[in-house]
């Protein structure tokens, strides 16, 4: 584990697997898109709108996976002070927020034809919305300080707090939803769940795989640029330190 804490080591491995990840990502997309859009059959209840589900569920999967990755890396950063873990968390957060937004929007686009309205206070949509706010809070907090190290630590603590809270929020919203929701929506939701068969699973897994690989490939790119930013910042800092120490001699 500690081997990965060294940025040079980490990036050497990351750069080595990057072409593979990117390649697999392209292949998966090449397979997933035609199957999801053309070759898979429409759902007997949902009709063609089931095709939205492939990207909706994939986005939702990534927003949760990325939150997990951020929380785990924040813990590693706070406990062992691995600089790389911090960079992984910070580079991931904007992507998590985008996938979260995508899950919300595709969920709405799926809900309109199915439920007749863009927004219902469905447990999943509501939890997703709250998770989106958590992402925005994380990103805002990480960027709110003049001293970037403070932002790193504050955001890492927030991510850990969030990771305790996400299950609690999810449970609360789920419970609240069963208390308030009329049964019609529940029924149509169960329709989706019970109709999960192989013709849907294949494009779904392909799409989820493609999205996941896309995230990892982009993560490597973003890590490179975060590392460069850190180098630039450090170079500037040492210039300032050099100047002030040189002053009395002049």
């Amino acid at each position, binding site marked *: 584990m500690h081997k990965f804490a060294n940025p040079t080591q980490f990036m050497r491995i990351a750069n080595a697997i990057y072409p593979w990840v990117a390649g697999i990502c392209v292949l998966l997309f090449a397979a997933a898109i035609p199957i999801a859009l053309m070759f898979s059959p429409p759902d007997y209840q949902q009709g063609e709108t089931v095709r939205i589900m492939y990207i909706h569920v994939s986005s939702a999967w990534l927003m949760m996976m990325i939150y997990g990755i951020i929380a785990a890396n924040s813990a590693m950063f706070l406990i062992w002070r691995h600089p790389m873990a911090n960079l992984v968390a910070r580079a991931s957060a904007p992507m998590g927020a985008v996938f979260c937004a995508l899950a919300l929007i595709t969920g709405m686009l799926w809900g309109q034809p199915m439920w007749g309205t863009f927004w219902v206070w469905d447990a999943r949509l509501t939890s997703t919305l709250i998770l989106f706010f958590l992402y925005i809070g994380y990103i805002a907090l990480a960027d*709110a300080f003049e001293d970037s190290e403070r932002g790193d630590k*504050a955001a890492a603590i927030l991510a850990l*707090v969030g990771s*305790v809270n996400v299950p609690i929020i999810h449970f609360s919203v789920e419970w609240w939803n069963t208390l308030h929701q009329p049964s019609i929506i529940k029924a149509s939701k169960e329709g989706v769940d019970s109709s999960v068969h192989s013709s849907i699973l294949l494009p779904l897994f392909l799409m989820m795989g493609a999205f996941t690989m896309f995230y990892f490939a982009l993560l490597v790119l973003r890590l490179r640029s975060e590392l460069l930013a850190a180098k630039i910042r450090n170079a500037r800092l040492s210039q300032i330190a050099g100047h002030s120490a040189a002053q009395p001699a002049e």
Partner: protein
Amino acid sequence: MSVFTALLSRDLKLALRQSADSLTVIAFFAIATVLFPFGVGPEAEVLSRIAAGVVWVAALLAALLSLDRVFTVDFEDGTLDQLLLNGQSMTLVVLAKVIAHWLTTGVPLIIMSPVLAVTLQLPAEGYGTLVLALLLGTPTVSLVGALGAALVLGARRGGVLLSLLVLPLYIPVLIFGTAAVEAALTGMPSAPMLSILGGFALIAVTLCPFGTAAALRQAAE
């Protein structure tokens, strides 16, 4: 324990001397609640349906308003550095601060809530549960809020950022707090919701002080 008692009594004394601060929060609570009848109309049926929710939301917003100053003043005048050097435990310091905050804002909010509920036509069965729910829910509000306040110390736009961080975390308290009152109104037992609120408070009191202490330490660094 000297750390805890000294700090708690200092904060209470300060709050008493600057009682305008607490009164402002209460005034905000009242104003925010009173806005709702103007927004939804004065019909007793509508108001009594939303009364519990409105009181809870307004209480959360009022508490949020007061959180800003929990650590900011101490941070700016150097007191926080000295508190960090307490020699015993930072968790005790945090607990003293949180309890002081709860006593100076949570308790006044609870006392004020039945009065505001009257203006919103809350049926008679609801008052006991509303006060109980607030009593069990506001400690979590103070604990989680203090954590948020510690995280945004020294941040740009700290106040707005604080609400962005803390409000989503308040949703579970809000859900069960209003559900408890609703249960009481429909003649169902409200004990399960109240015990869940108590459970939240227990989780918060075991975890939040550590997080807050860590956040305060890194704020001073």
